[in-house]
């Protein structure tokens, strides 16, 4: 149902007539995105069954407020998105107007001394990185890619970063935030006129704003935000040139005090010991694990599937390395001085030995040396999201955040069994059973682990196999009654037969009835229920849920 002409005109008066459209062709492009093929409304297709009513392009906080107030007045639901990547960024129900925040794309401030930047919603990680790196600072770019919105990641969505080892979890880097509440009122987290913190006297609202996973656009619109910045030990510009297989570009010159190594371990226990010891010694600028050798290579060589396959798989190199490299990690050492650099390398080398690890020669010479030292930094700093899509589709199992030991016990080992079975079916990418991605935060105080599944989004059989595979994984979690399923909320992962709200309803009782607490918050902040709640709270399905 289209907007009534007078409503359309009212919105047009707010944003200007060129910044609103209800043309079916325009609206169609707001019904399609990554993971729609997993969404129970579309699967295994790509299009949502409903269009937005209109798409608006507000250019300021004031315009956002005016739109939201009008939505409250006329009972129209709204959903804001920025760069938009994943089903959760689109309206989950009919009757919604979309606020595409693309016109709000300025970096408002970079405070070098206090190490933070203030951004609007459509500033990308790449834009922020380009500006702060010249000032000796760095960010915590989300692994959704350097083209993704900084502010959406800080406030509204899931998404980890590779540099969490020194920079912390993404949500922890949110400072002062400007928030247009679902009522249209403006709330500023942190002190008035200041951005250096998101807190103040009294209870923190950061948990309400974001919590663990964000409200996926279900709690109003975030219009400005400050992000914590971190030290950058490298040069003011990383010069690249075309080449390499990983992201099509490689470093022209390796920064003087940068080294990336990939020690591997025979057992998870050894690997965990290594993570702890490196964390205790505060050695790494970045530290992560990218599955077994087969999985690691499938990510490394993604610039051209053909080249990757012919160079690494057809030659038997990957298969041989998979035997040798049971549990590889990637560690980036990045220092400020020669002395510090040598110290860090030496200590790390000792820890590798002490924990029973090894660094294979093949990783330190020839093409692998080039990949590790010239291509990997571009991939990590440049943070290209697309090299995870080499099979034409990518999804993750439910993620687990906790200590090294707990994530491996609850996720790594059991998921390998399930993944192994499906990887051999030919219906999902056979990149080895061990494709657990593993991010480290705050010197390995805690880690995040998830299992990757690569499928072909253009092939319904492959999509359905992936959905089944993840349902198997989910069922196993439930049998064990030990799983932790944050991604079920944060992304479309989990039990794909159900809608996100059904999943929330399912999970709530296992986790302190969080869904009811969410619902209380939702009703308090959004009394007219206009901020599209398809990915947040429990009320869409259960209007009669009793909130005591």
């Amino acid at each position, binding site marked *: 149902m289209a907007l009534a002409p007078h409503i359309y005109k009212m919105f047009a008066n707010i944003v200007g007539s060129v910044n609103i459209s209800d043309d079916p062709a325009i609206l169609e492009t707001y019904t399609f995105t990554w993971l729609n093929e997993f969404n129970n409304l579309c699967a295994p297709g790509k299009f949502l069954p409903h269009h937005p009513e209109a798409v608006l392009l507000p250019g300021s906080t004031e315009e956002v407020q005016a739109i939201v107030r009008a939505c409250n007045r006329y009972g129209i639901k709204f959903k804001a998105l920025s760069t938009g990547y994943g089903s959760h960024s689109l309206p989950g129900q009919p009757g919604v107007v979309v606020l595409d925040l693309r016109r709000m794309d300025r970096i408002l401030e970079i405070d070098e001394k206090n190490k933070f930047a203030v951004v609007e919603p459509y500033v990308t990680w790449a834009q922020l990185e380009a500006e702060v790196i010249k000032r000796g600072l760095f960010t915590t770019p989300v692994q959704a890619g350097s083209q993704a919105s900084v502010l959406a990641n800080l406030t509204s969505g899931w998404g980890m970063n590779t540099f969490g080892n020194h920079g912390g979890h993404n949500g922890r880097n949110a400072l002062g935030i400007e928030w247009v509440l679902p009522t249209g009122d403006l709330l500023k987290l942190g002190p008035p006129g200041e951005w250096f913190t998101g807190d103040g006297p009294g209870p923190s609202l950061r948990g309400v704003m974001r919590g663990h996973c964000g409200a996926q656009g279900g709690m109003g619109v975030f219009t400005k935000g400050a992000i914590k910045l971190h030290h950058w030990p490298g040069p003011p510009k990383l010069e*690249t040139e*075309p080449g390499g297989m990983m992201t099509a570009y490689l470093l022209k010159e390796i920064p003087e005090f940068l080294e990336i190594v990939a020690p591997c371990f025979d057992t998870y226990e050894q690997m965990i010991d290594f993570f702890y010891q490196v964390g205790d010694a505060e050695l790494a600028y970045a530290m992560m694990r990218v599955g077994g050798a087969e999985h690691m290579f499938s990510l490394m060589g993604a*610039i051209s599937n053909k080249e990757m396959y012919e160079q690494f798989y057809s030659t038997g190199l990957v298969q041989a390395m998979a035997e040798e490299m049971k549990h590889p990690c990637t560690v980036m050492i990045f220092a400020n001085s020669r002395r510090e650099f040598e110290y860090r390398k030496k200590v790390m080398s000792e820890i590798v030995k002490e924990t029973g690890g090894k660094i294979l020669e093949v990783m330190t010479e020839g093409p692998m040396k080039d990949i590790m030292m010239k291509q990997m930094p571009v991939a990590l700093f440049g*943070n*290209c999201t697309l*090299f995870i899509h080499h099979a034409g589709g990518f999804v993750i199992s439910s993620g687990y955040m906790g200590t090294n030991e707990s994530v491996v016990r609850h996720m790594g080992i059991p998921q390998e069994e399930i993944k192994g079975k499906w990887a051999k079916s030919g219906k999902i990418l056979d990149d080895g059973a061990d494709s657990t991605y593993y991010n480290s935060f705050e010197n390995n105080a805690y880690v995040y682990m998830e299992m990757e599944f690569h499928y072909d989004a253009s*092939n319904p059989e492959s999509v359905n196999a992936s959905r089944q595979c993840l349902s198997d994984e989910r069922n196993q979690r439930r049998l064990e009654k030990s799983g932790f399923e944050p991604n079920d909320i944060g992304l479309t992962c989990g039990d794909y037969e159900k809608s996100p709200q059904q999943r929330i309803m399912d999970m709530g009782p296992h986790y302190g009835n969080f869904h009811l607490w969410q619902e209380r918050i939702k009703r308090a902040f959004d009394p007219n229920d206009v901020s599209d709640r398809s990915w947040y709270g429990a009320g869409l399905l259960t209007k009669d849920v009793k909130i005591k």
Partner: protein
Amino acid sequence: MALVDYKKDMMRCVRCSTCKFIPISSLLKSWRFAQGCPAIAKHNFHAFSASGKLIMALSLLEGRIGYSPKVIEILYNCTLCGMCDLSCKVGTDQELWEVLHEFRIDAWQKGEKNRLAPHVSIVESIKSYDNVWMQPRRKRTDWAKGLKIKDLNQEKAEVLYFVGCTYSLDPEMRRVAKNTAVLFNKAGVDFGTLGANEKCCASPAFMVGDEELFVKTATENINTFNQLGVKKVVTSCAGCFGLIKSKYPRVGPEMKFEVQHSIEFLNELIKAGKLKPSKEVSMAITYHDPCHLGRMSDTRIPSHGKEYYVLGTMPIKDIPKVMGMNGIYDPPREVLRSIPGLKLLEMERRREYSWCCGSGGGVKSAYPELAMDTVKERLEEARATGAETIVSCCPWCEKNFEDGIRASDSELKVVDAVDLLIQSVE
């Protein structure tokens, strides 16, 4: 060959927005010049991005939407500059640009050209006059009056100088052809032209989706060039060059000649000592990489959706992955650096990730506002370098720069690289 051949590429789009920007942060130098796609930069709705057009194409194939004035407006509000293709291919094997082009062919064949009067007019001009400017064929030789140039209809030569419609027929642009011929003569090049018998390369037909006219014209041109027995076809127009080098190979007949842009050829002549830039040309310049001399000149053979799988579900396209890295980037810079006194200042977006001038893909004729906004953005980037002059090697870029400079009261000047070289050569 049909739009449906690329359905899998459409379905694999993840709507990540990478196609809107210069890819990966290490290529970026500032917040200000991070955009990659002129169409989305102007219109902002996702539909105008490459991803948006892929989504629309899939929707069309699935019968969810049909052709409409808005679909055509979105589809043709695009310079087909290829930047989105590069950004996407940084991490995928998808053929994004081919989908955009095939979408236009589909629209043209299904009668949507009736909504595109400016494009139809250009195509009819090619059909009637063998040029895009509705000029009589005989005028193609006006620029060459007084110059000693072989007529390859009558004589043999090693090099065919393929002048192009705009350099032959646009009074303001003829100087580039003339300067080029003068330089060739100075260097003792054995060259000639087809004179009034030169035919348009058919780039506009290719760009708007008139596949029939493109194939017919390209085939005729290839056969003509082969029959001449020339070793090289050298063209001054980046549009002609990009099309002949990158797209003619998909037509079929074997091309028994090498294709070069004149700036490449002149660079070779300088390196061989046949041209000696020695007079000082004191000027701070910046160089604009034309899309069709740069990333779009890399020869592209479309897959038409042909692929096979390995490791279960990993698709492999059995064609070379072309990102535009092998465009002509160094020769123009080497020519400019060979001229004493010139100070070359680089723009932030350059080489394969250069920002389009806004003129291509039929945009200048049908959507002048997009052409103007896009060129103003480039002029701003040029101004930020501190240069006083922007240099290019493409008539379409130069003309759009001239229009942009006039409209924005910019103090920048625009010249062709050949204009500078001839000043320096004794």
